[in-house]
């Protein structure tokens, strides 16, 4: 029980990063403290579950509301920053869909195909997804992880396909179909990182 509550507290504290940065700086630590206090005070598992469910569902709504308020504020004061924020939002939404879809695909492939090939693909696919998720906050590191794992995945898939197709070019093209979203996300993160740096320099 203690381990579970510690995990939930950690998860909650991590999710608070999804609030706009100024909001997080002002209230993030306090919110994590209050949530931890609330959860540790409760001894009944059912009550703990109810609190967690309500807090997490409310958190989603509140994050959206605060992000929207922050965007409206930025639009008035710094349109360039508002534009970057909108791009980030699109990237984040797509990254969730991408993460869910490709993880599901990798697990399906692992279940139905060769154990070791599937496992290696799943491992690198997971690293790629972690890179995409890191990119939520740290675009530069996220881009490096995503692009590196996309390249590795392409090579692994190409070698596996080459055994069947026996044509390196066709194998490469087919494997790129599989890893193209990874490259796109990596490049998108790089561009985002460059724009953020530029906007910070201008500010």
């Amino acid at each position, binding site marked *: 029980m203690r381990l579970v509550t510690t995990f939930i507290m950690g998860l909650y504290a991590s999710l608070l990063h999804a609030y706009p940065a100024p*909001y997080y700086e002002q209230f993030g630590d306090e919110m994590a403290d209050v949530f931890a206090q609330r959860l540790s005070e409760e001894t009944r598992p059912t009550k703990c579950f109810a609190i967690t469910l309500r807090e997490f569902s409310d958190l989603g709504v509140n994050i959206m509301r605060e992000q929207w308020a922050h965007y409206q504020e930025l639009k008035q004061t710094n349109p360039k920053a508002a534009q970057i924020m909108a791009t980030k939002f699109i990237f984040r939404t797509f990254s969730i869909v991408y993460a869910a879809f490709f993880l599901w695909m990798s697990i399906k492939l692992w279940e139905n195909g060769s154990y070791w090939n599937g496992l290696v693909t799943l491992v690198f696919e997971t690293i790629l997804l972690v890179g995409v998720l890191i990119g939520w906050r740290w675009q530069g590191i996220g881009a490096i992880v995503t692009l590196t794992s996309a390249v590795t995945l392409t090579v692994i898939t190409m070698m596996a396909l080459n055994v069947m197709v026996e044509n390196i070019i066709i194998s490469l093209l087919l494997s790129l179909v599989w890893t193209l979203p990874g490259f796109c996300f990596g490049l998108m993160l790089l561009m985002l990182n460059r724009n953020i740096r530029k906007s910070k320099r201008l500010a």
Partner: protein
Amino acid sequence: MTLAEYLPLREATFFIMVCLADDPKHGYAILKEVETLSDGRIVLSTGTLYGAIKRLLAQGWIERMDTDDTDGRDKKSYCLTDLGRRVLQAESNRLAHIATLGQRVLSRSQS
């Protein structure tokens, strides 16, 4: 802007301001007191509470202050400002007026 333009307050906002009227409180104490004052009817989530606190700070109705916790950690507490107190007073008067009006009409219709 006159005080009347701020009214009516949301129920949760009203309760948060009421529990800050006596003395400064930190986040968890506010949550607990709002629950007690409303007889368990209003159970705020942490996110909703801090969303409300952010708006109240922006409007200048409450202010933030540093207080030492029993375990020596710095804790942020919140207290009502003069403007906040006047808004709370205005809202209380408004609610009292509505309640009186309701009671008067009910007692008239019963007699």
